[in-house]
């Protein structure tokens, strides 16, 4: 393990029902660097992220992660409780006492909706609430699966800004996105 590598992937392959999704991928993620995973729908981007997270086991190869590794993950699903209010969701995420909570609630403009149930929020507002977990993270590696989906231009810009800042602060970032974005990143293309 090199000094500031957070994760190293060695020759990982993944098959599902004998269909190869990807084959012999190797890469590593260092603090301060971003990796943008691209590929068509169904090419295995989300699967790759789940392998990195350790949820799914690769068919071949291995993932080594730094001892200090702390991951913040946001997938296609928001992991919110639809029937609870925003306030309760924030409580469940244990972010209610976070010092920067107010700052970011203001930023995404959801402060006045604190007592609205999540299911009444608009699609983009729900995504923003889910992103609060990212904005207030205390991890050193961010893994985001299409974080820009459903966001309006302003919020897209804010998120880009935020992520770029996190990179400057030395955190690692792996993300997928079909929507072009301005984050400086290495590219990993998946083709099957």
């Amino acid at each position: 393990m090199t000094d500031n590598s957070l994760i190293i992937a060695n020759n990982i392959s993944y098959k599902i029902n004998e269909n190869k999704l990807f084959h012999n991928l190797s890469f590593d993620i260092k603090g301060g660097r971003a990796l943008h995973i691209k590929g068509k729908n169904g090419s295995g981007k989300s699967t790759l992220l789940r392998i990195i997270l350790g949820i799914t086991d690769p068919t071949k190869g291995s993932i080594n992660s730094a001892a200090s590794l702390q991951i913040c993950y946001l997938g296609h699903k928001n992991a919110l409780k639809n029937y609870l209010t925003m306030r309760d969701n924030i409580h469940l995420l244990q972010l209610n006492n976070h010092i920067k909570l107010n700052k970011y609630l203001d930023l995404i403009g959801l402060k006045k909706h604190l007592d609205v149930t999540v299911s009444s929020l608009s699609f983009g507002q729900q995504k923003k609430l889910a992103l609060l977990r990212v904005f207030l993270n205390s991890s050193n590696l961010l893994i985001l699966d299409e974080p820009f989906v459903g966001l309006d231009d302003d919020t897209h810009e804010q998120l880009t800004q935020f992520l770029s800042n996190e990179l400057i602060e030395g955190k690692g970032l792996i993300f997928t996105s079909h929507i072009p974005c301005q984050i400086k990143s290495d590219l990993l293309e998946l083709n099957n």
Partner: protein
Amino acid sequence: MEILKIEFLKLRKKTRIWLGPILVFWLIMIAYPLTVELLQDRLQIGFFSVLWIAILISMMLATEDIFTEDYNDGSLEQTIIQESSFQVGIGLKVFVYWFLIGIPVSLLSFIFSFGTTQNFELSLPIFPLSLISSYIFLNIFVLGNSLSLNKGSVLGALVTMPIALPVLIVLGKGMTALQFDINFESFILLLLGSLSIIIVLIPIVVSYIIKAHLE
């Protein structure tokens, strides 16, 4: 301890999850006398069967969504990523459910028993009996629900039934023993013994099942 606190918080916020089964229990116990002619001694005869069935059903309802929701909305992934000891988490979750649902239901069982039989000697042991059996039922149903997680299958129900029935038999026998005052303690011990095994094994098994589901 952190996990315990979060689980409590979650349940406290989702009132329906713990209050619901308690209410259903209560409603069944109310419904029972409505369907019988209102003579005190006839009421008593079916009473304990209805009681055990009501406990069974309310525990079933309590666990029904114990994982599905978290699975569907993606929270389960988050838990697995963050939590170092997923088994312990599951064990604690079941404990919290028991604490918030099993205990009140057991108390209600005692109250309803006393109200119906007007016999304190007979009703008091109902409390520990239902405490233990509700915990056992909870564990069994948790196992079933982990099996049928996102599937539209009845796998869970099919698997759990054969396990739940013996417990009911023991409970029934226990009640007879109690009424005729023979050897009641051994039934409590038998149930306690089963519980102590179940309480350890089921969370471990369930954690593997869930991980397999998420892969």
